[in-house]
């Protein structure tokens, strides 16, 4: 069990790195896209501004930190 959780933690660290907020933001943006698409509302416009905002915020945190 300990090995499985260590493996999952390693995978998470490998993919998301030290910025979990950006990873969470991507998941939320994809969820909003899916919700809009499911309601047959145009959803393509969600991701571009969301990704740019997430990147800008991540850089801001890195510069200030």
């Amino acid at each position, binding site marked *: 069990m300990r090995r499985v959780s260590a493996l999952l933690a390693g995978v998470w660290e*490998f*993919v*998301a*790195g030290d*910025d979990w907020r*950006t*990873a969470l933001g*991507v*998941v939320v943006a*994809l*969820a909003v*896209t*899916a919700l*809009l*698409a*499911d309601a047959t509302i*145009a*959803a*393509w416009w*969600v*991701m*571009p501004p969301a*990704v*740019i905002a*997430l*990147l*800008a915020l*991540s*850089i801001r945190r*890195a*510069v200030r930190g």
Partner: protein
Amino acid sequence: MSGAEIGLAVSVFLACAVEAVEALTIVLAVGTTRSWSSALWGVGAAAVTLAAIVLALGPALTSLPIDALRVLVGGVLLIFGLQWLRKAILRAAGVKASHDELQTYAEEAEAARAAGGLQQGFDGYSFTISFKGVLLEGLEVAFIVLTFGSNQHHIDVAAAAAGLAVLVVLGAGVAVRAPLSRVPENVMKFAVGVMLSSFGMFWGAEGAGAHWPAGDGALAAIIALMLLSSLVMVRVVRVSVGRAAVASAGAPEPAAADPVRSA
């Protein structure tokens, strides 16, 4: 070859070339200071491990339904790509130090000399350091090959691009016989970050059910948007960091040192 397949090949080639340059530095350092044969055994063992990972996970990924695959791979690729892009932007803006292959080589060679215990025959240190270096650098490439390749159902194209990059870097390394310090690593990482983020955004949104205007043609616009936004961010960070440096250099002494204010 479609535009997406060319993008796949270019992204994998660049990512693999950058990682191969970094791995080459480590192998060169232990090879020249300790044992070439043991270092090369380490490289071979790591290459076999990486190939096994791709062969084991590739079919599992490609067997997923296309929408699930796209949202999963797109999301993960986007998160991963944003990491690359963030570091590249910080390096380009001068906030984060750029990777210096000569310095890395010197540090690795010094550590290899200091490790001592060098004997004739198999050298465990050279094997382990080479194995770890190639495996760790190669994991990111294997990840990109798997995600890009499975989504396009062209793991073969991705693997071929990765193999070509390794051959080019190896050839250059053999020709130069020194760390490839003049390779513009940050520019390449910047480009890979833009490509990974753009493809991740495109596939992730499609997998979530969105329909891009102009279909696959939207990908070029997304790449242009990500590139432009990233360049603007480099500029903004550079200016704001420069202003902060000027402000701190010209800042008045603390209040205690100012007799008028402290009075």
